[in-house]
């Protein structure tokens, strides 16, 4: 038997079975018992089983977990995914008013006297069976074109970073709503009791990055109980806050302390009968287990070289995007429901070509590696991958324009994301934009639609997962959202 499981069972017996005479109610006892310790892993659990408030999945899930590579600050769809050959005829010409159609633009460029079109200076080529156009900046992603579904018709409501990134992560521009991961934790939880159900990995700043702030509200629980908040794993210091014992306190000394603590808490539980004490005892034991499971998770020294090589040279540096992508896979293997890997730096208002070239060097290979790595382990089919940021960028240049130098402002009206794995139709392009990548011409996908689709793939009806707060039933998708059935496998 797995020694950790053995230990869990021993603890459970000692603390719960050994004290049935204490007067603790049967209901409370049942609640303290941990159902998942008897189920080795995801695989053995019922398809319909959840570990959150939902008694059962609303329908059979296609994905069991999600990894979102969040490209914060808005990558340029025009230079990566959305090929617009016609633009070359329009170099330095003004964006036709019929295209712009009086749409609002940020006050960073609204003062510009003209809006000269900046065609992408990068070469595009067709890749994969379906011949998706992909920029030369993404050679590794081009190699897995058949595994992904490129959604070119994403759109959002907000035009500035703070509200837009808050919208993308929580479904509302106003701070204070639960994030996607918190909703998942609340609704279906995770089968792993040694790790959080929602983990956030923030990659360190990369060369070529022009970055904005992140906010802890992006993985907060909002009005949901705090335990559903994302746990931001750190690349320096303790991977989880306060995980390490203080200097001089060995695992054995900690165990001694916990044994005494457990016994005293048991005494108190027998005396006052409050089931919260039983819960606290269990949480201390879980904390103790995390002291083992988390460092084990963060330690990649046992990964074979060919796997490390897939993610690229930076994989050995904790906190790099490559390392975080590998960590995301390790988290997925351990049943973590939702991992969100943040890579900042796509805010290329000026000198975009030089900067994006540097940034894609960091961003391209690990994404493709993650797909390949999951695939070779047979995990891609039930792991949903999402790639993208809070908005796209404008076809017109911000600041002065030359053939090989330009900048792009924020563009919420259309941008590109891709999805792959669990339940997503591979090797397709969904949606289309006009010749200027300025307006959506086919199959728009709103942020709420994306969220509805993600929940759907996990077995959740986005209209039914609600929480009563401030006098109404809240949903991740507010009163909107349609599952994008076209992209479902």
């Amino acid at each position, binding site marked *: 038997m797995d020694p950790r499981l053995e230990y869990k069972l021993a603890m459970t017996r000692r603390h719960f079975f050994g004290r049935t005479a204490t007067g603790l109610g049967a209901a409370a006892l049942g609640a303290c018992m941990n159902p998942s310790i008897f189920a080795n892993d995801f695989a053995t659990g019922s398809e319909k089983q959840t570990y959150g408030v939902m008694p059962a999945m609303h329908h059979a899930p296609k994905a069991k977990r999600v990894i979102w590579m969040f490209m914060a600050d808005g990558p340029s769809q025009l230079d990566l995914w959305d090929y617009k050959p016609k633009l070359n005829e329009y170099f330095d010409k003004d964006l036709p008013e019929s295209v712009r159609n009086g749409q609002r633009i940020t006050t960073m460029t609204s003062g510009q006297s003209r809006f000269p079109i900046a065609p992408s200076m990068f070469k595009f080529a067709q890749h994969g069976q379906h011949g998706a156009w992909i920029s030369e900046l993404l050679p590794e992603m081009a190699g897995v074109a058949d595994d992904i579904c490129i959604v070119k018709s994403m759109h959002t409501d907000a035009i500035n970073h703070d509200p837009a990134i808050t919208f993308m992560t929580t479904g509302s521009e106003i701070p204070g709503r639960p994030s996607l991961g918190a909703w998942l934790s609340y609704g279906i939880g995770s089968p792993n009791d040694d790790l959080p159900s929602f983990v956030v990995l923030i990659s360190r700043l990369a060369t070529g990055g022009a970055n904005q702030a992140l906010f802890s509200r992006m993985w907060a629980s909002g009005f949901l109980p705090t335990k559903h908040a994302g746990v931001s794993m750190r690349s320096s210091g303790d991977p989880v806050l306060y995980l390490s014992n203080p200097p001089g306190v060995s695992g054995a000394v900690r165990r001694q302390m916990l044994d005494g603590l457990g016994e005293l808490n048991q005494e108190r539980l027998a005396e006052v009968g409050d089931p919260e004490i039983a819960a606290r005892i269990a*949480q201390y034991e879980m904390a103790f287990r995390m002291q083992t499971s988390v460092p084990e998770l963060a330690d990649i020294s046992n990964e074979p070289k060919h796997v490390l090589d897939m993610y690229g040279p930076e994989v050995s540096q904790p906190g790099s995007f490559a390392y975080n992508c590998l960590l995301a896979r390790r988290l997925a293997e351990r049943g973590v429901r939702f991992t969100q890997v943040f890579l900042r730096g796509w805010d290329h208002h000026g000198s975009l070509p030089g900067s994006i070239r540097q940034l894609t060097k960091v961003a391209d290979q690990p994404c493709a590696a993650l797909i390949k790595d999951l695939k070779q382990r047979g995990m891609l089919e039930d792991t949903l991958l999402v790639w993208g940021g809070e908005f796209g960028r404008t076809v017109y240049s911000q600041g002065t324009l030359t053939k090989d130098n330009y900048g792009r402002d924020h563009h919420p009206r259309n941008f590109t994301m891709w999805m792959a794995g669990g339940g997503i139709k591979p090797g397709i392009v969904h949606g289309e934009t006009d010749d200027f990548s300025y307006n959506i011409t086919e199959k728009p996908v709103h942020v709420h639609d994306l969220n509805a689709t993600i929940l759907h793939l996990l077995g959740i009806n986005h209209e039914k997962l609600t929480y009563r707060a401030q006098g109404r039933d809240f949903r991740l998708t507010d009163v909107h959202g349609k599952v994008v059935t076209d992209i479902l496998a």
Partner: protein
Amino acid sequence: MQLRFAALIAASATILGTSAVTAADRKIEFNRDVRPILSNNCYLCHGPDKNQLQAGLRLDQREVAIEKRESGQAAIVPHDAMASSLIARILSADPDQKMPPVDSGKSLTPAEITILKQWIDQGAEYQGHWSFIPAVRREPPATKFPSHVRNEIDQFILSRLEIDGLEPSSEADLVSLIRRATIDLTGLPPTPAEVDAFLADTSPEAYERMVDRLLLSPRYGEHQGRIWLDAARYGDTHGLHLDNERSLWPYREYVIGAFNQNMPFDRFTIEQLGGDLLPDATIEQKVASGFNRCNVSTSEGGSIDDEVLVRYAVDRTEALSTVFLGLTLQCAVCHSHKFDPVSQKEFYSLYSYFYSMSDRAMDGNVLLPPPLLKLPTADQQKLQRDLDEQSTLLQQTIVAELSKVNYVDPLAGRELPADALTVTRNEMVWFDDDALPTGAQLQGDSPWQFVPKTEGPVFSGEKSSTRTATALSQHFFTGAEPGLKISEGDSLYAYVYLDPANPPKSIMLQFNDGTWEHRANWGDEDAIGFGAKNTTAKRLGGALPKTGEWVRLEVSAADVGLQPGIKLNGWAFTQFGGTCYWDRAGIMTRSVAPPTEFHSQIAWEQAEFPTPNKSLPVPIQDALKIEAAKRTPDQQKQLRDHFVQYVNTGTRATFAPLFAKVTEVDQQKKNLEAAITATMVSEDLPQPRDTFVLIRGAYDKKGEKVERGVPSVLPPLPDGVPNNRLGLAKWLVSPSHPLTSRVIVNRYWQQFFGTGIVKTAEDFGAQGTWPTHPELLDWLATEFIKTGWDVKRMHKLMLMSGTYRQSSKVSPSLLARDPENLLLARGPRFRFDAEVIRDSVLFASGLLVEKTGGKSVKPYQPEGIWEAVAFVGSNTREFKPDAGESLYRRSLYTFWKRTAPPPSMSTFDAPSRENCTVRRPRTNTPLQALALMNDKQYIDAAHKLAERIILEGGATAESRLTYGFRWVTARQPTSREMDVLLKSLERQTASFQADKMAAEKLLTSGDSPRNTSLDLVEHAAWTMIANLLINLDETITK
């Protein structure tokens, strides 16, 4: 990551509903029994929202619900449930007929259907929503447990227990009582000495005396104030985008003081919402109005002012409704409220009270976005007066000296020489330091950053502007008004310092006269792509200037295409990569340069006529522009005085030292001004903004214009109050208002008993929970008003009740009946708030530094919390912990960065303070266990608690363990507990005996130095015992 308490939660949710059903003989009450069912399941399509209304059927209005429909049936036929189509449709098996519709995801339970049937059979009587009906004060009911009655509260509680067949618990032991009361009133535990004194006081008034003592403690205001700050959404940063620091802490001080001086709650309300509008408002009252400024604010480039101003006003309206009305009006931002009778128009009427506040949309990322109020201390005020006196004295001396001068112009009466002054070019500074031209709007791809001399090279003045870039980067401004006029032959200049360690590839100056097509470039001419080379759009200035020193860049205006007569309104500093510092910039322009000294006033006037030097005082300039003969006598005197004091070779030496002294005093005044604390306050625009309904809440979709007003479901504004924020505040606390006092006493109840009488403390509307004890809530609400909104008296009333004093022990059967303790057949028991946990542990260890008030402090937090999320240019990106006593202040003084709150607080459910919070969740997680076990602050505390135990706890292990146990739980350990502790001590001692290095490490890792007079192994073992004690469930639980 969580325990599976679904079973418990489900059980707790049903207890009240169950009791309503089982008591079949009770008359069904619409408000209590029926309305929640209709509201949850039917009102979405058959409720107040006209846009969603289906089939014209409203179930929230009796007259519509009972009228015959086209089908010939009525939805509700009073006294005949089976004839009512409402019931028929609910019971229907036909998916097309079934209500609620299958695809709505809603369905009724059999119990709910029974209630609806009973209600219709009993006549289908409706009621208005309970919380909008004024509180009715009923006589406290009789009870069959008279011995448990301490005051009126108990009569209400006990009579409800009787209905449910429950019995109250006996009174808690005295130690539990003093601990409970001390924690609840002051946020700190009692000391062993306080416990002993209380146990020794055998008089019947001992408990009351103890409560009175605690109410007078200054700790009371800190604890109660801290709870209020959650509601007020107080934070130390702006909360959005850069999330820079802001200064509002004097408002926190006001809140603490208000509780300590027992300010009546009505006054507390009025001062916070409208203190600035009170006639002859005091400084305190203006500070109080900072409540309205606690909202999050932004200065994100690209934001649209109109949109942001709408957000601020919506936030303030929601604060009003959440904190005082206990209503959520959020829905009405976009559409009429679906569940509560507040229309969208009424929302915007309420919102208009806040829409005309004078703070700007962009907070400028500054510490004190105006309006603000300066708050000099007594010492500062004295210094201010001293400096003013010195100024006056100096002025008098100058006047006296002036009167002594008898000046005779040497040219008087002589023929005047011809004009022989030369034309030269003078340097004119357009901007220097962070003093940019008026109207300039700073923009760029990163925030402008100004550094003082201590942090970087500065060419002139106090600061320079700096930036580090990896690629193309721009700082620029536009909008300068009146702008910089260009004349024939002028040139433009700026000073630059290139970091020798990290020089840029290229630098550029750009000038805006409406377009940016005027550039000068130094260094790699291809690095910065703007403009066609060798045109006025990109003049090449040659190689990069020398690094490591200040270099003056100068370019002829004509070379970059700036014609005489045009005006610059903007300027850009552009660089590719590297680190640059920029300083003083301006123009070399033609002007008359007169000598600075004259013997003759006539010659001086001639030199200054008709375009006097701009540096002269304005009245002097004005006088000099006029021909001598046309000057008034007053002007003549002004000119003469000025000449004698500043210009005349013979006399100015007398005045120079006096003016130097004036300058010095002025500088001191300036310094003093900068040192004076200031705080953000409320203020209204002189002319209110027009307010409109915003269609679907969109800032740019204006609908109908609205006037200020309160929702019609609530009473009108009282007579004689102004129709502004002040009047609105007075309305809230007018005796006829049905909500405010209920909402506030309910929150006090929640504080002491764990759950409010209305569990949803933030929502008294239709979607909120029904009060468990409506008559008690009304009695308390009326009592609060009757006693003049006396807060301490209300707190004391609750603490004096027998209900509060019950033992919190719970039997399995009672736990099963009432897991959440809503009916209070036992005393309250729940985990402390985050702040109370930290403060209690610091207190027990002797580390807590009790000092009231002041700026926020930064105690230890793990590294990287701020950096991980912050914007590069944010001034709250780098966390530097304070040192010394600031590490150990009470937690309400901890600096609150709203995008990354202190983790030791948020781990224990403290809110981010981005929104108003009137009810915190109370979770139980492994992250909390890790924090209490391993957070450096708690290890430090364990170390000090161990020291205290060894030094003060007597000689034996037993007496020491008892002493330590009492510091954290107030009580003595039982003998079984003592056995466990002794065993643990023995094992820990053995461990450290075997590894003394480990003991040394443990005791030297924290901020507190190790007391070397103590035995190393003993101290380390006791530190782990203290760590254990701190982690006991009981230590952090009431």
